[in-house]
Every structure is written in C-alpha cells, then in structure tokens.
C-alpha cells in the first residue's frame, strides 16, 4: 500500500512534467532533452527566491515561471527558430537540445554549485494513516496541487482561444497553418506552458527529494516514457502515462532493487514503441 501511495506521488510529479514535454515534442516536432534543464532551473530559481531573498514559497514558484519562460523563449529565438526557418530535421534539433541540456546543466553547477541543497522548509513528521501508510504534509500538498494544476490546464486547453490553437497545432501542424493559426505564436505559448509544467515538476521533485543539478536528467527517462505511453502531443495521455509510469516504478521497488526503477520506465516505453508507437490513446504519434 505504501508503495502505491509513493507511486501516486511520483506519478503526480512525472505527470505534471510530462504535460509540458509532450506539447513541446509535438508542436516543435522533436524530443527536447533540454527540458530536463528547464526543470532544474525552475527548482533552483525557486530556491534562490525562497531561501536567499525570503519570498514566500508559493510566490517564489510563481515568480520562477515567467523567468523560466523568458529563458526558454530566448533560447528558442537564438537556436530553434533559425533551425525551423532552415528546415533542419528532428535529428538536428534533438542534437541542439542535448547540447543545451549539457550547457544549461553545467551552468547550474557554475551558478549554484554541485552540492546537494534543499529548501529551508521545516521537515514535518509524516502523518500515519490506516494500514500504516505514511505521508508527509509536503507530499499531500504536492498531490493536491498537481490535481489543481491539471484542472487549470484542462480549462486552458479546452476553453481559451490559444489553448484550442495549441491543441489544433499539436493535432496537425499543416492543417493549423492552413486555418490561419499563427504557429510562431503557438510555439511561444508552448514554451510558456512548458515552463509552468517544468517549474512545478522541478519544485515538487526538489521538495520531495533534494536539489542536485543532475535531478532533471534522472527524471528524463520516466518523462519520455510517460509522453510516449500517453501518445506524443496528447496532454491527457501524458497525465495518464505519468501516473502509470510513476506507480509501476514505485511498486516495482517491492520486488527489485530500487536502482532499477528507471529500467521499469524504459521497458514500458520500449514495449509501447514496438507495439503501439502512437501510445495508449492512439491520438498523437506519427504513424
């Protein structure tokens, strides 16, 4: 039971992160490894705002989002925009994304150091529920906030004009262009959504564990697994995929050495690619 609760917690973190990644993967048409660095930047910016500048924690997360968005949009203007104009394929984009991931992760080490850090939030004792399930108050906050975020995101995608344009672009980029959707504007908004997604996922992950520059890279495999399982470009699929990956990873720790948790994500992802590359829900995907 405890493992399932841990799984739901991890699933919430992966789901939140996977939503941004799935939209970027689909709308920009490549798998962006630099997303891992966005997560790390979000977590560290929040830490500086909270630990050093004394900004209340909720506000710190909210301030980190526009900062992260600016950084992402700036990077897009410097690199990917030119590559799009030149017609560079997904592979070239992916290599640039990896370059960015290595560069940005190193910059975190240079700016904040490589030491393990944490938010100066008092550690509170876990609350013991029936069946001896232990959950810390922080973890309850993470799960509740994730649900709220997912609802807000749903409203954004389903109700607002730009949200609809984003879904249309994710569905069929050429059709979206023909219908007069400004795809560059959609891309800018995609980076904003990705930043929200990355900032919260990074913050939750750091809150539940610790801050280290490598934390984003370590989450990347489960994130991609969630994206592919849910169907690339399908935000609701990413939510479900994230939950499935999170729960399978944690429950597997009951049977195998915990170091192999990422291997569970890897196996699920590879099987999905072989059997149904378009993902569980059949929408996204290219085939």
């Amino acid at each position: 039971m405890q493992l399932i609760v841990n799984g739901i917690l991890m699933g919430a973190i992966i789901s939140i992160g996977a939503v941004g990644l799935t939209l970027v993967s689909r709308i920009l048409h490549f798998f962006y490894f630099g997303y891992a660095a966005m997560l790390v930047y979000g977590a560290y910016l929040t830490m500086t705002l909270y630990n050093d500048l004394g900004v209340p924690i909720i506000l710190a997360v909210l301030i980190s989002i526009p900062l992260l968005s600016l950084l992402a949009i700036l990077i897009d203007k410097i690199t990917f925009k030119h590559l799009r104009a030149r017609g560079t394929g997904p592979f070239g984009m992916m290599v640039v994304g990896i370059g960015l991931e290595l560069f940005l992760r190193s910059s975190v080490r240079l700016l904040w150091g490589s030491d393990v850090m944490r938010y100066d939030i008092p550690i509170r004792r876990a609350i013991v529920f029936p069946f001896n399930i232990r959950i810390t108050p922080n973890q309850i906050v993470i799960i509740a906030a994730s649900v709220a975020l997912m609802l807000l995101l749903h409203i954004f995608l389903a109700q607002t004009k730009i949200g609809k344009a984003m879904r249309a672009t994710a569905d069929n980029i050429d059709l979206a262009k023909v219908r007069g959707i400004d795809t560059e504007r959609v891309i800018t908004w995609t980076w904003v959504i990705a930043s929200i997604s990355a900032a919260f996922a990074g913050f939750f992950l750091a809150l539940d564990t610790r801050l280290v520059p490598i934390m984003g890279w370590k989450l990347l495999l489960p994130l991609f697994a969630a994206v592919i399982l849910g169907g690339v470009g399908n935000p609701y699929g990413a939510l479900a995929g994230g939950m499935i990956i999170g729960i399978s990873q944690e429950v597997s720790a009951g049977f195998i050495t915990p170091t192999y948790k990422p291997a569970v994500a890897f196996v699920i992802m590879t099987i999905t690619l072989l059997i149904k590359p378009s993902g569980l829900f059949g929408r996204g995907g290219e085939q």
Partner: protein
Amino acid sequence: MSGSVGFLIFFLTYAVVYAILALGLNIQWGFTGLVNFGVAGFFAVGAYFSAFMTSNPSSYHLGGFGLPFPVGLLAAMIVSGLFALILGFPVIRLREDYLAIVTIGFAEIIRYIIITEKSITQGPYGMGVIKPYKELVPTSYYSLFYLGISLAILLLLYIAMERAVGSPWGRALRTIREDEKVAVAFGKNVNSFKLQALVLGSMIFGLAGAVFGHFFNFITPNHFLPMETFLVWVMVMAGGSGNNLGVLFGALVIRGLWEGMMFLSDVLPRGIQIGAVRLAVIGLLLILVVMVKPEGIFGEKKTASDILGE
C-alpha cells in the same frame, strides 16, 4: 617516463581510445544514418568483459579467468556485439528519434546494472584491470609500449573500416542513409543492413572499452556516463560524418580541447569547477556544429563512380 613526455603519451593513448569509438560511431551514424546515443553503454560492456576475462581469479567480481589480452579484446567485442543484437533486433525499425531515446535509456540501464550488481562488477568502487604484457618491457617504458599496442589496433581497424565502406556492403549502407526507399527498390533488406551496422559499430565500442580498461587499469561506472556518448558524437559530427580520416582528426582535436581545458583551472577564478566548464563547452560545440557546420570540418569524400565524372 615522466613530466611532459609522460603526459603526451597519456593524452595520445586516451585519444586513440576515442578515435576507435569515433570509427565505430562513424559506421553507424556516418555511413548508415543510424542514431545510437548508447555509445557509453557498449563502451562499458567491453571494458568490463575484457577485465573479467583477463584478471586473476577473484571472489569479488565475475570471472578472473586470467586469460591473455587478445582473448579479452575478443570477448569485449563479442559481448558488446551480442548486446547490440539483442537490443537492436526489436528496435532497429524504430524512427530515428525514438531510437535515440531507446539507446540512451539502454546505456543508462547498463550503468545502473554496473552500479547495482556489486558481486559481478564491484559496483561503484570499480575494479582493477591488468596491464597486459607488463613483464615484457621495463616499467618506465610501459606506457609508451601500450600506446604502441593501441595505435596498432587503431591502424588495423582504420584499414578494415576503409575497406568495409568501400565495398558493396558499404555502398548499401550509404544508400540506406541517403534514401531507404531506393535501397528497398534495389532489393536490399534495410533492417538487416542497419542491424549489421549497429552490431559492427557496437563491437568496435566494446573494443575501445577493452583498450581503455587496460590503459587506465581501473574502471568504475563513472567512466561511462552519458557525457562520453556525446563527446564521441561531437568528434564524429565536427570531424565530418562519413569520413573516417575526418573523425580521427575530430577525436584528436576534441580530446586535445578536453585535456587542454584542464589548464584553464590556473586561469579561472577559484571555485569554478573544470568539470562543469568542460561539459558546457561540449554542449556548446554540439549546438554550434548543427547550427554552423552540419557537414563537419571535412565533410564526406565524394564516392561517385569514375564513369560519371564530376
């Protein structure tokens, strides 16, 4: 050997290891257009299996069969090739970006296995690897002797690779890279050729792993981080994918840059970690190659038939 000569020998041997890796990746990516982001995984498999074969009996890790050095090299190649076959058989048909993620995941899992299975690999503490033929040469000349062995291996490999890519087999690979449909139209089994390139290239990564292990004499999971994969990618992409001499040059220059950055530590303010700077520079190089010079410094040699002329 000490001082700057010792350092030069160390640097060159290291560069030879990466040159071998670059030749392996050039078969996969340069000639076949096959994306493999799991170089570090096969590199690790080779290093560990050669160590298992050649070291003396031990209860702390697998093997310790005390076999000769060439057997270690052979084992490294065979086992790496087998891993490539097992991984590649189901996934070789995947689209290139999916293949990228699958191979990177594969290499990470190899690393997790090395860290976790302490009874096989001695886990994160690493294991010692023998110096082959050390009784044949005086200790002070040993590093020069081993550089000679590594260079001989590289030279043989280079000749073999040049012959392979010039053969009809090599032409089939290039056709697949340029246009799979054309290769199919000529009756080539595209997936079979791709699998062959994956296995052959990975055997070369395994060979490089063995050469590295016996050179460094100590291997830990930290020698096989994903960063190593991208270091090799920079060498191949910057040197010129599809040009064996170009990627050798790429390996030498990038390795030189990597070692050269060590001297930055005298210039940079204290507290700046050289490891982070190195990683950042590799990242920047990856970005620059794609943005500025996607064909690399040398590009590919023209291989059109003489009859066609220019």
